[in-house]
């Protein structure tokens, strides 16, 4: 299995300028009220199904819980997928994100996030894919997904990129893909933002060819900034992140879905910055290390330690369907 460590000198403010981020959050709260609150159900842990919780909190009027059995963090007040689809398609927050926040940070995001992701997918396709022209699909991507990044790699003729599809969804984005099989499916932050992540993963596994690949980026509840800051963490941001899986919970899923783990890494680069920037009170030692000492080399070494030991809240997986 592979574990990846990344140093890309990215600053949190590069991709989320604080002023615009606060505006975005205000709009998210308003859209939650409009689109999600009327359609909230109650959920057990989406990772392991347990009803036992070790703690609960509320963020943007949505109740969250930490599973007592697997440590995953999830929205116990769970919006329906239809409501989520409307939130992402029609909401002011999404419009603001696309028109302002994304537009102003697009170049940095392309360089530091999307292109590296596309290259990550590409290199694994080269190693593991049996065909010269793999069929690659994306589910529930943020923004326009990886299409532009793949195009920058010059893969227009290299592989067939399927536009984002929403299994079980509705509206014009729905594509008729019944019976389709793909060489690879990308779930970039997808599992964090859907009502039933296990169903989405099941659909994915059902539609990937034997030997095909599943690429997942996701958020781990066992990451240091989430575990330390919980509701005060910007990583916990409904409804984009209503499912934060524990590292161990995700490993169990890999087993349950009979997948081979080629890579499980937490190559996040912003955990230390998130802890430093947060207005929340930190445990004494972390406060001393990250704020009082704040030595640049120490901070880099610490982020590397977090990455190396799968303790970042940002995770990525390359999974292969057996057979």
């Amino acid at each position, binding site marked *: 299995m592979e*574990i990846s460590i*990344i*140093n890309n*000198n990215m600053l949190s403010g590069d991709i989320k300028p604080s002023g615009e981020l606060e505006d975005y959050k205000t709009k998210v709260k308003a859209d939650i009220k409009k689109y999600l609150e009327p359609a909230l159900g109650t959920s057990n842990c989406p990772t392991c199904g347990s009803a036992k919780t070790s703690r609960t909190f509320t963020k943007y009027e949505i109740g969250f819980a930490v599973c007592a059995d697997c440590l995953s963090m999830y929205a116990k007040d769970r919006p329906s997928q239809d409501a989520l689809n409307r939130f992402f398609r029609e909401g002011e927050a999404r419009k603001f994100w696309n028109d302002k926040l994304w537009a102003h940070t697009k170049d940095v995001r392309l360089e530091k996030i999307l292109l590296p992701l596309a290259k990550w997918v*590409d*290199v694994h396709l080269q*190693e593991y894919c049996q065909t010269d022209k793999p069929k690659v699909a994306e589910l529930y991507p943020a923004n326009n997904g990886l299409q532009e990044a793949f195009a920058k*790699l010059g893969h227009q003729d290299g592989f067939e990129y399927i536009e984002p599809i929403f299994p079980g969804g509705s509206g014009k984005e729905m594509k008729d893909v019944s019976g389709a099989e793909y060489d690879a499916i990308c779930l970039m932050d997808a599992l964090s933002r859907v009502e039933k992540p296990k169903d989405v993963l099941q659909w994915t596994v059902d539609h990937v060819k034997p030997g095909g690949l599943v690429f997942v980026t996701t958020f781990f509840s066992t990451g240091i900034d989430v575990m330390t800051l919980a509701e005060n963490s910007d990583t916990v941001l409904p409804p984009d992140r209503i499912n934060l899986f524990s590292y161990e919970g995700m490993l169990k899923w890999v087993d349950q879905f009979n997948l081979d783990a080629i890579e499980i890494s937490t190559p996040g680069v912003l955990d230390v910055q998130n802890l430093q920037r947060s207005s929340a009170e930190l445990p004494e030692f972390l406060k001393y290390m990250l704020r009082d000492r704040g030595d640049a080399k120490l901070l880099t070494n610490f982020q590397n330690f977090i990455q190396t030991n799968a303790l970042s809240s940002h995770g990525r997986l390359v999974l292969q369907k057996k057979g």
Partner: protein
Amino acid sequence: MIKTAIIGYGYMGEIRRRVALEHPHLDLQMVCETNPDRTKSLTDVKVVTDPREIIESDAELVYVCTPNNLIPELTIECMKRGKHVFAEKPPGRCLQDILDMREQEKASPEVKLMFGFNHRYHPGVMRARSLINSGQFGKVLWLRGLYGKSGGKNFGESWRNQKNISGGGILLDQGIHMLDLFNYYCGGFDDVKAFISNDHWKFPVEDNAFLILRNKERQFATLHSSATFWKHRFQIDIGLEGGYMTVEGLLSKSGSYGRETLKLARKQFEDETDAVGNPAEEITYFDRDLSWKIEADKITKAILEDKPIEESSSEDAMKVMQTIEAAYKDDDWKVELDK
């Protein structure tokens, strides 16, 4: 199922047996080993002491895992009888050995002949190659290889240091892997400069070799192959137009070469006046070695689909032996072998 046999049940024979038993297309039927102590625990396979029993058997694929001096004759005899052969590296003791095997291979077009250049299939090595082939980093400019071990307590007693059995020392035994990787990344090298020495261990074979290589595309490579690395070391640095990569460490049974990692970084400047010299690096750790299985998959696929051996072929074997012979010749290093 491909009826399979192994000749030579030392370190490599054990590995090949384990892989064959787990492989869905290989049916391991016989093992040949002259030392009965090594095979006394084998109960699930027929054990013989005379390789002729395997050569004359109906085995379709034979793994030849013997010392170097025995590889050519056994390989040739198997091929004469229409058997496919997977032979360990090095491919004999000298260049002439591989040339003889290739001659028989040509005379037996129906057989597949593959050699155990296993390092090609290590995860860090393969990842580096995928990245090179992706074009993301541009052309390879140079390679630098360090590969060595300390020898160990009974080093002098090893057949690997007896020239009539081995044909050469550390360069032939271990450095050959690195030379093969150089070819794997760059296609081949034409010019060879070398210093060869046995100054420390004073065996009749080399304990250190320093090589510089160059090819027609003006790609350069250097290798230090050593039996005096008190800390075991495997490292290949790859300099490319757009960045660099380093594969360091090697997944192995003992773990003595360290954790296998690939480090890479992109060049971060165009104008030299803005040189930073410390680009952000990405590191990948690999904890799973599928190289033995991949080798078995490759020869199995070639046999079942009647396709040519495209990697770790006799041509690949010949190329590295040409380089080694050129290195010995460049430093006037004499390895005179009894026939």
